[in-house]
């Protein structure tokens, strides 16, 4: 436990209104101006602006309130406490493991700080295919700028760690340009523990920025509280029924653990998968069958390389170098493009990534300090054979994403494995191991290239993960094409806004946090204007 200040504990001492879990019993009924479901990227931006507008805001978060005093840089603590399903959420066929946050601050509390605006290509596609004519670079630029200022986003001037520099060097040898990634940090200690919660409060997540601002302005935060269902009537949300949940998400069995929140306006920001699931549980109107469909993941495949030198991929800021080269080698609606980055490695995530068992696995595990990994984010949502997945409900009302990995997507995965392997050998790798059950370490590009061309690129055999969940309540300029209007309001429910990554009509093609901040910034400013007549900016 660090001796540094903990702004959350300080805020609680100042009298923040936080209820649920150990913070005190929730009332049976709360009446407010705006109820916000979630406390992540979209919820935080919304909460700050709405609270600054003088509205009474209640924020409902299913996860716990954890802060820097709790962040011990230990995976065994972080994964169960801060992530959906203990960092083991999976798609219906178990072929994709999803990393998504579940705590105050949402995924922003556990992400790796990578900051990219929505690519122009992506916006152009939205304008053309989803009638989103005001989603242009120029129109959105000031909102991105405000978010970048508010969250201290800027160039990372410290030299990349070896795990990242290998991407830069290997790509350079092949004539592929790579660049530095901007990060939302202030006074970063270059530890590399971002994924376990920032222990120094350098990462400017919602936990240490917008949520505290809203709480200082009198907002109420309910934690360990899950929004189960909206009560709907006359084309409006009347209330949201919430229940207390245990650390593993199971309902607390108690007659006194239901809270009903009545509000004039509701902001749904529970994240992709969960937002769609809440609307499904509420039997929200869905006349065109769009709800939950077109949920995207930037499916990730990975390649591990053993280097002669120490890499120590656990140390130093994660994800500081990227290349978009392979997003531009074909049209956006052609064969799948992918973005390359270098993820951090820690023991637990490393052990579950290294395939195999026995002596073969032991040999790989012993090479941990020499292991460099690249990942490829496949850009889904721009081709009919990469149409994403559909959110469904299990018998107990919990959410599951059914995301079929089509041959088209797996062909992109094969090309990504080849691209990463070539870069790794160019960077001097002694051996490269694609993350696939049938692969083994290869000693040369010639050998590895032939092997990967012959791999059965099947789901489950190929290790596929996701850290970016998007879509399911897509924006569209016409009712038939989406769930959400261009101004963020649900097409059929007049007092419900959806302000999170679930509104993206396609995947972003870049790490999505800034896309959520910037776009939700514009949506919330519009909502504030409609509700109060005020003109507010985020920064």
């Amino acid at each position, binding site marked *: 436990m660090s001796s540094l200040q903990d702004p959350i504990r300080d805020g609680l001492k100042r009298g923040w209104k936080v209820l649920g879990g150990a913070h005190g019993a929730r009332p049976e009924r709360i009446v407010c101006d705006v109820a916000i479901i979630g406390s992540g990227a979209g919820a935080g931006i919304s909460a700050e602006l709405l609270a600054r507008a003088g509205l009474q805001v209640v924020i409902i978060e299913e996860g716990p309130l954890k802060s820097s005093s709790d962040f011990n840089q*230990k995976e065994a603590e972080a994964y169960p406490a801060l992530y959906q399903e203990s960092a083991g959420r999976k798609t219906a066929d178990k072929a994709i493991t999803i990393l998504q946050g579940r705590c105050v601050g949402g995924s922003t509390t556990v992400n790796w700080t990578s900051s990219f605006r929505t690519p122009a290509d992506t916006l152009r596609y939205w304008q053309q295919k989803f009638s989103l004519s005001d989603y242009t670079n120029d129109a959105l630029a000031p909102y991105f700028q405000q978010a970048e200022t508010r969250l201290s986003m800027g160039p990372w001037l410290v030299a990349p760690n070896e795990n990242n520099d290998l991407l830069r060097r290997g790509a350079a040898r092949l004539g592929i340009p790579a660049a530095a990634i901007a990060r939302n940090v202030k006074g970063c200690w270059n530890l590399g523990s971002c994924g376990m919660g920032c222990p120094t409060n350098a990462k400017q997540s919602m936990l240490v920025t917008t949520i505290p601002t809203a709480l200082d302005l009198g907002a109420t935060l309910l934690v360990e509280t899950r929004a189960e269902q909206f009560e709907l009537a006359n084309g409006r949300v009347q209330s949201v029924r919430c229940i207390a949940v245990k650390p593993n998400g199971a309902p607390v069995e108690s007659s006194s653990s239901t809270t009903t929140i009545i509000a004039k306006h509701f902001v749904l920001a529970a994240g992709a998968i969960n937002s769609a699931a809440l609307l499904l549980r509420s039997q929200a109107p869905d006349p065109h069958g769009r709800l939950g469909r077109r949920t995207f993941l930037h499916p990730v495949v990975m390649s591990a390389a053993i280097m002669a030198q120490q890499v120590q991929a*656990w140390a130093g800021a994660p994800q500081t170098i990227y290349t978009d080269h392979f997003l531009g080698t074909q049209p956006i609606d052609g064969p799948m493009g992918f973005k390359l980055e270098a993820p951090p490695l820690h023991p637990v995530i490393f*052990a579950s990534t290294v395939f195999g068992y026995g002596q073969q*696995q032991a040999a790989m595990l012993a090479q*941990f300090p020499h292991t460099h990994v690249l990942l490829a984010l496949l850009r889904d949502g721009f081709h009919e054979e990469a149409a994403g997945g559909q959110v469904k409900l299990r018998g107990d009302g919990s959410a599951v994403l059914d995301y079929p990995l089509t041959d088209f997507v797996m062909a992109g995965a094969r090309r990504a494995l080849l691209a990463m392997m070539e870069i790794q050998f160019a960077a001097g790798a002694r051996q490269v191991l694609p993350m696939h059950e049938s692969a083994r370490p290869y000693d040369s590009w010639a050998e590895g290239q032939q092997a990967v061309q012959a791999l059965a690129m099947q789901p489950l*055999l190929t290790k596929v993960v996701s850290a970016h969940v998007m879509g399911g309540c897509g924006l569209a300029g016409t009712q038939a094409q989406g769930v959400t209007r261009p101004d963020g309001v649900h097409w059929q429910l007049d007092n419900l806004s959806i302000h999170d990554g679930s509104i993206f009509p396609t995947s972003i093609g870049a790490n999505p946090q800034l896309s959520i901040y910037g776009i939700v910034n514009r949506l919330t400013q519009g909502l504030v204007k409609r509700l109060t007549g005020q003109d507010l900016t985020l920064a």
Partner: protein
Amino acid sequence: MGAVSATVLILAGGATALLQPGLQQGRLSPGAQDVFTSVARAILDGTLPQEPAASQAALTGLVPRIDALVQALPPHAQAELSQLLGLLGTGVGRRTLAGLAPDWRSASIAEVQQALQSMRTSHLALRLQSYQALHDIVGAAYFSDVSTWPTLGYPGPLTI
């Protein structure tokens, strides 16, 4: 893994009362402990300490860590895992799903590794999913403890 329930019914001939759930009050049943201890010995062969007493102590220490990992899982995942472990704990389940003839306690490391390999290369999604679940739980639970980090060459987090 509603497929597990279907498989259970088919294999047990509908006599599902014979199937002991693998999780009891959220913790590994004795049968499930046997499954995990045997599987872990095979997966971590080469990683576990060489000296027999130390190796046994490491395996014994793994069980409570698996319990902790399982307790943190959401209800639907606990239910699936309980069914899987319950099935693997039966002779029929062990033979058909895992491909292992001898029981978990008496199977040798080589026999369990052969069974794991057959799951890993199976065309049946359920067998591959089950292999990956066992593999990932064993790895995550084992390396969540600081005592295992020296074998990885991992120095632990920087103190701040």
